[in-house]
């Protein structure tokens, strides 16, 4: 389980958020652009430091500002697919997926086994030797997903994973995410600005407006209008 | 269509270049001057007689009658051996004072560089050379107006040291001490040839070939002009440098220490002055040459440490 309580002074407002994500569930983070969704993910991943806060992942403390605990991002064991899926264009699909495993210095046979396994899961095995820079948007998304999951992270985070995809690919990716999150029984935080996405894939939803949680609950019961900033 | 454009462009540019090169053959025939080719010491009266376009102005109270000039014919470009750098300002202002309306631009560089430039078409009115052999070459190649090449002045070689004498050089023999750093001109520079001759003379007369070889192995840089050697010495970066006596004499006292080289071993560098065939200002060039050879010019040169020829 992921427990996050953070605050951070941003340029136009203060981000003040409490977030809980249950294992096996997909928690959707929604809100307008600039409301602090991506910033929240970056803080959880360790790429940004909060002014004050606590981040607990499965009883492991990743960040506690009062005690000066701040686990660096490479040790947090979080799978994070950013808005730019950032597949390394100069590496093959295989090398991309294997990147995290190799970075953790796993032995070669293990790396090879896991990489093949995950390419299999995401149906990109036939693309293994292709330079990732050449892939289509949907293919890149799947490579990024395989890469993030191959290291068996404790938490999966996705920032706007469907924006650049067509309907067909979106459906495919949604199914994959749902399956893996359930199977691996890890919490998943997914940022999106589309109501439809949150309804199709989310188990819980959170609406953020100008750094503050506006509403929390089941996606199907989301209110029409956001009271703080009149969004939607 | 692009191809047609490229061809047109090439034609246009070729035409432009052809047009530019038209100007070169225009100066083929040298203008016969009424310059007295004899006595280097001409009085100012003779100067007046020699200039056909001189017009006596009634307003000149000075002893020297001032000729009238049209500004367009009176800017002189003088290619000058670099060793005259110090003297050039004074020469320039004195000349323009004596000949109001004229301006003089000095192009100062190693004589070898200037010679190459002239041979490749650079424009100059007067050429002051530090080397007889370069002068002879240019003369043979027809760059000088006949009978205008005259001896201007002479210079000897001297050794200068930084004021603090970091290498503790007391005599010429010390130049061969191990670890001494010497600056010299490249052999293509007239001062460089002169220095090599001096070293040979000294080796044959007083010191040995070993001395000469060790001195040469102590050379850390062959500069491309004589003033550059003086600069390196002045900065204290080398222990000694071979330069012209004029450089040592003309420098403010305290700039260098120096060690003179006995006259019998020294190399007398002869400077010549001549009017170039390509000059468009031959009359004014003649005035300049006269000025330099006259007592006025010679006085300035003496003040800057050159030796009268």
């Amino acid at each position, binding site marked *: 389980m992921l427990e996050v309580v953070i605050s951070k002074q941003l340029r136009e407002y203060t981000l003040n958020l409490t977030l809980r994500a249950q294992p096996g569930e997909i928690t959707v983070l929604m809100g307008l652009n600039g409301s602090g969704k991506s910033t929240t993910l*970056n803080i959880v*991943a*360790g*790429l940004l430091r909060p002014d004050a806060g606590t981040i607990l992942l499965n009883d492991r403390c990743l960040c506690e500002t009062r005690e000066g605990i701040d686990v660096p*991002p*490479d*040790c947090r*064991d*979080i799978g*994070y697919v*950013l808005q*730019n899926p*950032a597949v*390394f264009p*100069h*590496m093959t699909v295989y090398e991309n997926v294997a*990147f*995290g495993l190799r*970075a*953790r210095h796993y032995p070669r046979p293990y790396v090879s086994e896991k990489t093949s396994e995950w390419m299999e899961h995401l149906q990109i095995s036939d693309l293994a030797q292709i*330079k990732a*820079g*050449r892939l289509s948007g949907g293919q890149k998304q799947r490579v*990024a997903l395989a*890469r*993030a999951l191959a*290291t068996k992270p404790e938490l999966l985070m996705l920032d706007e994973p469907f924006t650049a995809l067509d309907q067909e690919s979106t459906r495919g990716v949604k199914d994959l995410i749902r399956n893996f999150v359930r199977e691996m029984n890890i919490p998943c935080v997914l940022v999106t600005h589309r109501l439809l996405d949150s309804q199709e894939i989310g188990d819980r939803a959170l609406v953020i407006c100008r750094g503050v949680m506006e509403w929390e609950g089941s996606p199907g019961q989301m209110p029409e209008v956001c009271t703080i900033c009149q969004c939607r | *269509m*692009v191809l*047609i*454009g*490229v*061809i*047109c*462009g*090439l034609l*246009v*540019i070729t035409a432009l270049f052809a047009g530019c090169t038209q100007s070169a053959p225009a100066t083929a025939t040298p203008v016969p001057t009424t310059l007295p080719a004899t006595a280097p010491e001409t009085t100012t009266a003779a100067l007046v007689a020699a200039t056909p376009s001189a017009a006596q102005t009634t307003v000149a109270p000075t002893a020297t009658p001032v000729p009238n000039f049209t500004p367009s014919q009176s800017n002189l470009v003088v290619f000058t051996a670099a060793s005259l750098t110090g003297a050039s300002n004074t020469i320039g202002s004195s000349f323009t004072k004596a000949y109001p309306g004229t301006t003089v631009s000095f192009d100062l560089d*190693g004589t*070898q*560089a200037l*010679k*190459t430039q002239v041979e490749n078409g650079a424009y100059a009115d007067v050429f002051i050379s530090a080397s007889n052999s370069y002068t002879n070459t240019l003369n043979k190649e027809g760059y000088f107006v006949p009978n205008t090449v005259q001896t201007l002045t002479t210079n000897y070689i001297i050794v200068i040291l*930084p004021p603090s004498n*970091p290498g503790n050089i007391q005599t010429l023999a010390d130049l061969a001490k191990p670890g001494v*750093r010497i*600056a010299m001109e*490249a052999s*293509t*520079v007239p001062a460089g040839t002169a220095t090599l001759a001096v070293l040979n003379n000294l080796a044959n007369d007083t010191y040995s070939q070993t001395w000469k070889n060790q001195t040469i192995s102590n*050379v*850390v*840089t*062959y*500069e*491309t002009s004589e003033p550059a050697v003086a600069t*390196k010495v002045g*900065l*204290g*970066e080398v222990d000694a440098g071979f330069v012209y006596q004029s450089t040592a004499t003309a420098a403010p006292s305290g700039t260098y220490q120096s060690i003179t080289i006995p006259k019998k071993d020294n190399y007398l560098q002869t400077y010549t002055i001549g009017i170039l065939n390509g000059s468009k200002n031959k009359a004014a060039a003649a005035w300049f040459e006269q000025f330099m050879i006259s007592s006025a010019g010679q006085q300035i040169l003496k003040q800057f440490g050159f030796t009268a020829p």
Partner: protein
Amino acid sequence: MKQNMAMFLERFRKKNYRPNLTYLIAGVLIAAVTFYLAFPIIALLIRVTPDMFFTTLKDPDVVRALWLSLFTTVITLTIVIVVGTPFAYFHSRYSYPGKVVVDTLIDLPLVLPPAVAGVALLVLYGRAGILGHYFNMFGISIAFTTLAVIMAQIFVASPFYLRQAKSLFEQLDPAYEQTARTLGASSFRILALVTIPMTAGGLISGAVMTFGRALGEFGATIMFAGNLPGVTQTMPLAVYVGMEGDINVGLTISILLVIISFAIMIVVRIIQKMEAARA
């Protein structure tokens, strides 16, 4: 009659001369630039016969200048890349007090006349120099040595690489490095496997410019390092001295420099083509 006139004019208008004029201007411009850049090189090649070239190639001054130039330039390039790449990386990723000053300093050697750079180096590192006289006390002399040549080259040529590297790193989408970080990669791994391969093309181009500038350096070299065959007489110095003395030497070295420059350009083009083909 009027009708014929009208029809004639109609045809003119229909032919639409505007694009043709554009092509014409383009052609002229292309020809002008090509002419200006290519013809001096061609003139050089015409002036030296292959016979004279190969004979002069054996001249000891030519050989020494060639080796010295290549030796010093390669070392300069190595130092600039090895030190400059991490420097540019940190400079682009972090902000620190005085960053603006450092930014300006990186650009300074580009506008500073090389002779001025040479004087400055001499006044600092020379035997009588501000720092130099300390070195001298320990018996270390810098001016008039091959080291001085390398130092002068680094001073004038490094901005080409540093600016390029800094700009490339700044423009690289941080998402790549951030993702690599969350996947567990160390800083070194990120630099070596992600950052540099993704900026390699531009870095090579910067390195080439640095090499070219270092190879052609004259003013700072002659001021700080002096001119001593075999020790500090690089090819540009040898050309200068040669042109005033033995013209054949000057011309031969000039052509050598042209050949080397072309060779570098061709190698770089090939590398870039290979990179593009792989991606």
